[in-house]
């Protein structure tokens, strides 16, 4: 079940030699989980830094550049500060749910990372329902937001949580349907096979017009799924203060914050995998060096992350009813038509294959 690079093979063999098969598997899983946890705690912080630098660049500022080289340690310092801060809460909050909510959010976003193929063999968990799993997992996160907003005993938080609920339920449809459009070409839900298909050209090229439409819808809906501007209804600081996490402090707040950035990374990673050939290099220029797949994957993902940041720092925020209008009246019908179009293209075999 666990494919891994040769280095992990080595570890596996070594573990198997000193303990029984089951124990070795178990230890291996724990190790991989720890590695992922470590990497993504740091990657999340790094994304926060990138966001701040990109925002500064858009806003004619310099951004954090003092702690560490070019501010590399800035968010690390922030995380340390948040760790040491007091955890406050409201008087009549539902304590159990209030404390549970941040874990819901952070755990679901880390779970989604498990199936993402970083390169050929660098994928913790390659199940045959990969895409379905991602869509399912990403919609659990909103439960954490709803719990947090509801249990905080704060009306602003509740409004934020309700908005977030409405928004995620609506935009999930578009995320799912736009990915479904692409699955008509690949014929599989398994992420490694989706990439295999793209050896004949990235899906955005193979599927041409409907694929580009699907990509645009996916990016819009994906931005909305992560509750980022221009769809940051749930936080809308000029309307709701801080929205659903108004009453959270310290590390619990940091969990919400980190989850937002990891979710953004996940959305970009899915788009990379499904539309831009994942870890495949353009025209197969570095096919002989499999490790460079990580580089290509991250480069494509980071470009899409940058695109989402670009949205955030340029667009004003939509109003909550306009947000729903956009989804139900425009994106959803467009998406359904796009599926039919894609089905026709696949049926008539108009796919562009390089």
């Amino acid at each position, binding site marked *: 079940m666990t494919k891994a690079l040769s280095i992990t093979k080595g570890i596996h063999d070594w573990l198997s030699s000193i303990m029984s098969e089951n124990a070795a598997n178990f230890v291996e899983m724990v190790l991989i989980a720890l590695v992922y946890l470590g990497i993504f705690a740091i990657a999340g912080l790094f994304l926060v830094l990138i966001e701040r630098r990109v925002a500064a660049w858009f806003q*004619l*500022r310099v951004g954090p550049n003092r702690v560490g080289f070019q501010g590399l340690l800035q968010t690390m310092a922030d995380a340390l500060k948040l760790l040491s801060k007091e955890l406050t809460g409201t008087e009549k909050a539902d304590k159990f749910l209030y404390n549970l909510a941040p874990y819901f959010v952070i755990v679901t976003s880390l779970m989604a990372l498990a199936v993402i193929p970083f390169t050929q063999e660098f994928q913790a968990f390659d199940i045959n329902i990969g895409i379905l799993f991602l869509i399912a997992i990403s919609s659990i996160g909103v439960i954490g937001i709803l719990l947090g907003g509801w249990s905080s005993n704060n009306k602003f938080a509740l409004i934020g949580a309700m908005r977030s609920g409405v928004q995620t339920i609506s935009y999930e449809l578009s995320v799912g349907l736009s990915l479904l459009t692409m699955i008509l070409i690949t014929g599989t839900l398994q992420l490694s096979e989706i990439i295999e298909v793209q050896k004949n050209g990235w899906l955005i090229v193979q599927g041409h017009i409907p694929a580009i439409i699907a990509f645009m819808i996916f990016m819009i809906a994906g931005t909305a799924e992560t509750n980022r501007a221009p769809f940051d209804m749930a936080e*809308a600081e*000029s309307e709701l203060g801080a929205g659903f996490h108004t009453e959270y402090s310290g590390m619990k707040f940091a969990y919400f914050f980190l989850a937002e950035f990891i979710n953004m990374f996940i959305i970009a990673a899915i788009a990379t995998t499904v539309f831009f050939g994942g870890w495949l290099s353009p025209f197969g220029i570095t096919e002989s060096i499999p490790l460079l797949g990580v580089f290509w994957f991250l480069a494509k993902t980071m470009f899409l992350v940058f695109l989402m940041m670009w949205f955030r720092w340029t667009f004003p925020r939509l109003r909550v009813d306009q947000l729903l209008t956009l989804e139900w009246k425009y994106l959803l019908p467009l998406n359904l038509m796009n599926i039919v179009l894609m089905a026709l293209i696949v049926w008539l075999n108009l796919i562009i294959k390089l």
Partner: protein
Amino acid sequence: MEETPTETNFKSEEYFINMGPQHPATHGVLRLLLTIDGEIIKKVEPDLGYIHRSIEKMCERDSYQQIVHLTDRMDYLSSNINNEAVCLTVENALQMEIPERVKVIRTIIGELTRISSHCLWWGVMGMDVGALTTYFYGFRDRELINDIFEETCGARLTMNYNVPGGLMFDIHSNFVRRVKEFIAHFKTKIPEYDRLLTDNVIFHKRTKGVGILTKEDAISFGASGPVGRASGYSCDVRKHHPYSALEKVTFNEALKTEGDTFARYQVRIQEMWESLSIVEQLIDNIPEGEYRIATKAVIKLPKGEFYQRVETARGELGVYVISTGTKSPYRLKFRSPGFSNLSLLSHIAVGGKIGDLVATMATLDLVIPDIDR
């Protein structure tokens, strides 16, 4: 609760939330008591007084020179125009002949203040509708005006540059050059504002048809400044009761008829152009002469009542002085534009969403010390 047949099984409950006094969208310490049904606003009630300093009572104790300093602390974004209002009241009461040079400089400074205030407003307006980047663009250009002011009068926010009888100091030798540089610079920047925010489709969706104020209501609520003019109500004091050097310049009163949030936005953008044109007309023709004429150390106004109207960046500021012939006014009332403009918020925000309320409030351009005085 009254039940119509269509909603027999669905009862929604109104609830109350407290927006402010610590809230990002109220720009200060304004507190709004909102009654909301879901997202729809049913009632808005402003609660004031969180930074009331009773400036009017303090004025009854202070001399007229001191009062000028207090006006900086009202609408701190148009402090020069506030100063000018009090100085004009005193000068008109004493029937002083003010040198042309002073008049021209006052108008230039006043219009620059208006531009700087609108820059800040534009930045904050964008921020209120969720476009955070505008804030920095607005501040970038406001900074240049502040630098000019700093060089000439030493302060960046509370200027105290006008005194009864003229100006505190003469303008700095760099003033004319730097103002010209600013005009050239800012002419390229307003189109940038348009590209970033005005032409954005989401922004149009957020502001068009939101918070509509009819012309009749605008007059009845005493709306002034860009708020009134966006409803088609010609209320520019600079046009109808010109003061200082405003008689000598030609400019258009920015008027719109829609009365919605977008119209108020457009009026302010238009006003920046008009103010630029006013400064441009005057900057090359600052007459030589005295920058100040001597007044007595203790100014005593004759017995009587004096009223002076000026147009600040927010609207009409009135200074009403009742004098009994002593060194301090018997009663001094500031008719502040923000106070009247705030009173119409509860009228136009009802029925909109929370987001609409924030956008509407942003275009009313409230400065809370101006309301609380």
